[in-house]
C-alpha cells in the first residue's frame, strides 16, 4: 500500500507562515463595531475555540502545548465531542499569548506541565465546543425559519428533523458567528455514556509532518535576515563573567557580534550557527566563579544526610503517635535511600528566536507555557505587553524543562536587543543544555517502620531530606515555608494521595536546598517518593515474612482505587503463580496527578549485575481515558524516561558545576533495552487524572523489587550504574 504525501501539512504551513512573516501567525482580526472575529484567512470564529471555514474545515484552538504527549489531539477530541463536528475535518492551531492578553485570557491557562493539559481544562473546552454547536444549530434554524429545538447536529451536518432538510457547518458559519453566545446556563455537557469520540483511540492529528521532515521545530526556524547565536553561561551556578577576549574571534568566518548577556553569559552571533558555535568554542572567557565553586556532590550529600535526623522538619502527613509506635515495636526496620540530580535532556536542545525593535519584540519558541514565555519576553525587552508577542512552535520534547523556565527566551531577547531589527536564533549546544539544566532535585529519605509481633505495620516514619523546587521556582506557593510538592504521592488526600492506612504515621521534610537550580522533571517528586516508599514496603514485607502483595493489601482496604490497579497488574502478571524460569517479579503502586497507577515488572539477572527488564505490566485509572492509544504510548514512553533515570542518569557536581556534558556521560535507554510494556487502562469514571507523568514512578521501584527478588540485594542509591549494574 502507498500513501500520497500531501503537499503541505496544515500545521507546518501555519508555522511556516510564522517563519517567513513576522506578523501574527494566526492574525486574528478583532473588529470594531461588528461582532464577528475572523481568522487570518477570513473564516469566521464561532467562538474563541472554534473557527469554521467555508469548506467545513473545523479549526480548534488549543492553548496547551504539544510536546509529543498527544494533548493537542486529546483536547481537540473534547471540543469535537460537544461540537458534533466531523473529526476528519478537524485541524488545530495555537492562539498566541499576546492574543490571550488582548482577549482577557479567553483560552484560560497555557501551562502544559503537571499532566494538566486535559485534566485542568476538560470542562471549559467542552463547553466551548457545546456553545459553538448551539450557535451553529441556531443559525441553521433561523435560516429555515424553524425553532432550533427541531434541529439536530451530527458530523458537521445540521438536520431539520420534521422536514429532513440539511445544511453544513461551513454554510452557516457566517450567520452563526453573528449570533450572541448562548448563556452559560444553556450550555450543558453530554453525559459520559453518550460520548462518541472521547475514549476512542483516534489517530493523532500531527503525525505526518514528523515522518517527512516537514514539521518545523524551534531549532529549524528561518526568518529573513536572521543571524544565529551560540551561548555560554557561567558553568558554576551563581558565577559571573569576569572578562572575554572578543577580538580573538571577531575575524573568524561569519562572526558578526560577540555580546555579553546580563553579567552571567557570553554569546557569539554569526551568519550560521555552526560558525557561532565554532567561534564561541575559541573565545577565551574568564569566569568569576563566585561562592559556589567549592561545592561538590559529596558536600551536598553531607548537608542532606544531616537533615535525616534533624529535629526540625515540615510535617505533611501525620496520624497517631509514630515515636511511641516505633519505640514499642516488636521489630523495627530502618533504611536510608538517596536520589540524584537528573537532567531533562529533551532531544531538541533549548532554543528561542527573537526580533527586537524599540517598538516591538517578537519571540518564536518551543515552550510548555506560552504565557510564561510571554512574561519573559516583556521583562527582558522592557516593552509593554501590547508591544510583545510570542509564537509557540511545537516542541522537540519538554519533560518539564520548557515550562516554568524561560532562561533561553530571556537570553535570546537580550541578545536581539543588542542588534535591533535583526532576528536572532539562539540554539544551545547539547553541552550547554547539560550544564545549564533545571535539575531533578536531590533527595534522601530515612524510613523507619514498626512491626508488631504478627508482622503488621503499626508505625511508619518517612523523613525526606533535600531540595525544594517551589522554594527556588515559585516561593509564593509555599505554605508557611513548607513545599507540599515535595510530598507528591504521600499526601493525606487529593491528587497525590498516600495509598496505605498506617495506624501511626509521620511523613515530613527537612528542607535542604543547594545552589544547583532545581526543576520539574517528568513526574517531579513522585520518582523518588515511589522508590523510597515502594521499595521500603517490600523491605517491611520481607522483615514481616509476608508476601509483598498481601502485605500491601492489608494496608489498602480504605484505598480501593489504589488497590484496584495493584490487583489488576498482579492478576495480569500472574503474581503468586510461578514465573518463567529465571524470571523474578516486583510490584509498585502510587497515586499521582489525579491518577492511580501500578506496575509489575519481570526481570532476569545474569552475573548479579546485568538486568534484563523483560516485561512490565502497568495499570492506570485516570478516571476518564480520552484516547487509550495515546495513553498506552505515554505509559511506554514514561518507562523509558524513568528507567533511563534509574539505571543511567546522574548529574554530579564538582567545583560547583555539573560534570556531565553529553549523552556519553549522561546516557539514555536504547531499543535493545526496552521491555515489553503491557498497559491496562481502567478508567473508573467521575474524575479526570493525568496521563503523561503518573506511570513514570512505578517502573523503577517495580524493577528494583524484582531485582531484589532475584538476588536478595537491596539497592538504595541511584543510578544503578554506580553499583556496576547495567541494563541489557
Amino acid at each position, binding site marked *: *500500500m*502507498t*500513501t*500520497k*504525501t500531501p503537499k503541505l501539512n496544515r500545521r507546518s504551513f501555519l508555522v511556516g507562515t510564522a517563519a517567513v512573516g513576522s506578523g501574527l501567525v494566526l492574525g486574528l482580526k478583532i473588529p470594531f463595531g461588528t461582532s464577528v472575529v475572523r481568522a487570518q484567512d477570513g473564516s469566521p470564529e464561532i467562538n474563541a475555540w472554534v473557527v469554521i471555514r467555508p469548506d467545513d474545515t473545523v479549526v480548534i484552538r488549543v492553548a496547551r502545548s504539544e*510536546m*509529543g*504527549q*498527544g494533548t493537542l489531539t486529546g483536547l481537540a477530541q473534547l471540543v469535537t465531542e460537544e461540537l458534533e463536528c466531523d473529526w476528519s475535518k478537524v485541524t488545530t492551531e495555537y492562539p498566541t499569548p499576546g492574543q490571550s492578553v488582548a482577549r482577557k485570557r479567553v483560552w484560560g491557562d497555557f501551562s502544559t506541565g503537571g499532566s494538566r493539559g486535559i485534566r485542568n481544562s476538560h470542562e471549559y473546552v467542552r463547553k466551548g465546543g457545546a456553545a459553538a454547536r448551539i450557535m451553529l444549530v441556531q443559525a441553521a434554524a433561523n435560516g429555515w425559519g424553524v425553532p432550533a429545538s427541531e434541529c439536530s447536529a451530527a458530523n458537521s451536518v445540521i438536520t431539520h428533523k420534521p422536514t429532513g432538510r440539511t445544511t453544513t457547518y461551513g454554510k452557516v458559519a457566517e450567520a452563526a458567528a453573528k449570533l450572541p453566545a448562548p448563556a452559560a446556563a444553556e450550555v450543558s455537557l453530554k453525559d459520559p455514556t453518550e460520548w462518541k469520540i472521547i475514549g476512542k483511540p483516534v*489517530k*493523532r492529528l*500531527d*503525525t*505526518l*509532518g*514528523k*515522518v*517527512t*521532515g*516537514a*514539521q*518545523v*521545530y524551534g*531549532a*529549524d526556524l*528561518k526568518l529573513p535576515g536572521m543571524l*544565529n547565536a551560540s551561548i555560554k553561561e557561567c558553568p558554576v551556578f551563581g558565577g559571573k563573567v569576569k572578562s572575554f577576549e572578543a577580538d580573538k574571534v571577531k575575524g573568524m*568566518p561569519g562572526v558578526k557580534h560577540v555580546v555579553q548577556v546580563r553579567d552571567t553569559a557570553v554569546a557569539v552571533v554569526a551568519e*550560521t*550557527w*555552526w560558525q557561532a558555535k565554532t567561534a564561541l568554542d575559541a573565545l577565551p572567557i574568564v569566569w568569576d566563579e563566585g561562592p559556589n565553586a567549592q561545592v561538590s556532590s559529596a558536600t551536598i550529600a553531607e548537608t542532606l544526610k544531616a537533615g535525616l535526623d534533624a529535629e526540625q522538619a515540615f510535617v505533611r502527613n501525620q496520624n497517631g503517635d509514630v515515636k511511641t509506635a516505633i519505640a514499642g515495636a516488636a521489630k523495627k526496620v530502618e533504611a536510608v535511600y538517596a536520589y540524584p540530580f537528573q537532567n531533562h535532556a*529533551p*532531544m*531538541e*536542545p533549548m532554543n528561542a528566536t527573537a526580533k527586537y525593535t524599540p517598538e516591538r519584540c517578537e519571540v518564536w519558541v518551543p515552550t510548555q507555557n506560552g504565557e510564561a514565555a510571554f512574561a519573559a519576553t516583556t521583562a527582558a525587552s522592557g516593552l509593554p505587553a501590547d508591544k510583545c508577542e510570542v509564537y509557540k512552535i*511545537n*516542541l*522537540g*520534547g519538554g*519533560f518539564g524543562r520548557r515550562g516554568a523556565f524561560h532562561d533561553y527566551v530571556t537570553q535570546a531577547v537580550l541578545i536581539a536587543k543588542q542588534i535591533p531589527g535583526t532576528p536572532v536564533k539562539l*540554539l544551545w*549546544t*547539547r553541552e550547554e543544555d547539560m550544564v545549564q539544566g533545571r535539575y531533578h532535585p536531590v533527595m534522601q529519605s530515612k524510613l523507619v517502620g514498626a512491626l508488631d509481633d504478627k508482622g503488621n505495620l503499626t508505625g511508619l516514619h518517612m523523613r525526606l531530606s533535600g531540595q525544594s523546587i517551589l522554594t527556588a521556582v515559585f516561593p509564593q506557593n509555599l505554605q508557611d515555608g513548607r513545599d507540599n510538592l515535595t510530598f507528591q504521592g504521600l499526601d493525606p488526600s487529593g491528587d497525590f494521595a498516600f495509598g496505605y492506612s498506617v495506624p501511626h504515621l509521620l511523613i515530613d521534610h527537612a528542607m535542604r536546598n543547594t545552589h544547583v537550580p532545581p526543576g520539574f522533571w517528568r513526574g517531579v517528586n513522585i520518582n523518588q517518593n515511589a522508590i523510597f516508599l515502594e521499595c521500603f514496603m517490600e523491605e517491611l514485607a520481607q522483615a514481616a515474612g509476608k508476601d509483598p502483595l498481601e502485605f500491601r493489601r492489608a494496608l489498602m482496604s480504605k484505598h480501593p482505587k489504589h488497590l484496584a490497579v495493584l490487583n489488576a497488574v498482579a492478576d495480569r502478571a500472574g503474581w503468586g503463580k510461578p514465573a518463567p524460569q529465571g524470571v523474578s517479579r516486583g510490584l509498585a503502586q502510587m497515586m499521582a496527578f489525579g491518577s492511580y497507577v501500578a506496575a509489575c515488572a519481570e526481570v532476569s539477572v545474569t552475573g548479579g549485575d546485568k538486568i534484563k527488564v523483560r516485561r512490565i505490566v502497568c495499570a492506570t485509572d485516570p478516571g476518564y481515558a480520552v484516547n487509550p*492509544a495515546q495513553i498506552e*504510548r505515554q505509559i*511506554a514512553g*514514561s*518507562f*523509558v*524516561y524513568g528507567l533511563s533515570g534509574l539505571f543511567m542518569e546522574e548529574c554530579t557536581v564538582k567545583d560547583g558545576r555539573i560534570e556531565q556534558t*553529553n*549523552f*556519553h556521560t549522561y546516557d*539514555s*535507554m*536504547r*531499543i*535493545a533495552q*526496552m521491555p*515489553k510494556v503491557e498497559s491496562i487502562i481502567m478508567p473508573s469514571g467521575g474524575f479526570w487524572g493525568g496521563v503523561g507523568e503518573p506511570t513514570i514512578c512505578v517502573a523503577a521501584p517495580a524493577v528494583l523489587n524484582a531485582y531484589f527478588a532475584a538476588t536478595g540485594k537491596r539497592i538504595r542509591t541511584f543510578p544503578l550504574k554506580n553499583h556496576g549494574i547495567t541494563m541489557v
Partner: protein
Amino acid sequence: MARLTINGKTSEVNVDPSTPLLWAIREQVGLTGTKYGCGMALCGACTVHVDGKATRSCVMPVSAAVGKKITTIEGLATNGTLHKVQKAWVDNEVPQCGYCQAGMIMAVAALLKDKPKPTDADIDKSITNICRCGTFQQVREAIHAAAKA
C-alpha cells in the same frame, strides 16, 4: 566551496571543509528535517544515508561527503509516495515529539535495505538511536510492519 549531491540535487556549499555535514545540510542547503541532538555521534538524530549507508552526519566533515550520494529524510519519499518505513510510522503512530524520528527512520530504512526481514536481535544491534520520548515499543512494531509491507 564544496559540491554536495543531496536527494539527487547538486548544491555548492560555501563552508569551511571541516564543517560537519549536518550543518551544511541544515544551514547551507536548507533542509532542516535532519536534526541536531548531540554533535558527538551518540544519539542518531542526524542520521542520513551516505552512499546508502546510515551515517551520523554531525561528525562527518563536508570534505568527506563530496562526491557521495547523500539522502536525507526529505528525500526518502519518492514522487510524493511515502517510503514504506514512513508509511509504517504513520500507521503505527510512532512519533511523539517527533524530533528523533527523522534519524530513526533513516536508520531503519538502511537496516531494511540490508536485512529486509530483521529479527528483534538485528533491530537491537543496529538501531541505537536515542528517543527521549521513549517510542521504542512502537518503533519495533513499525519496523516489523514495514518489513512485511
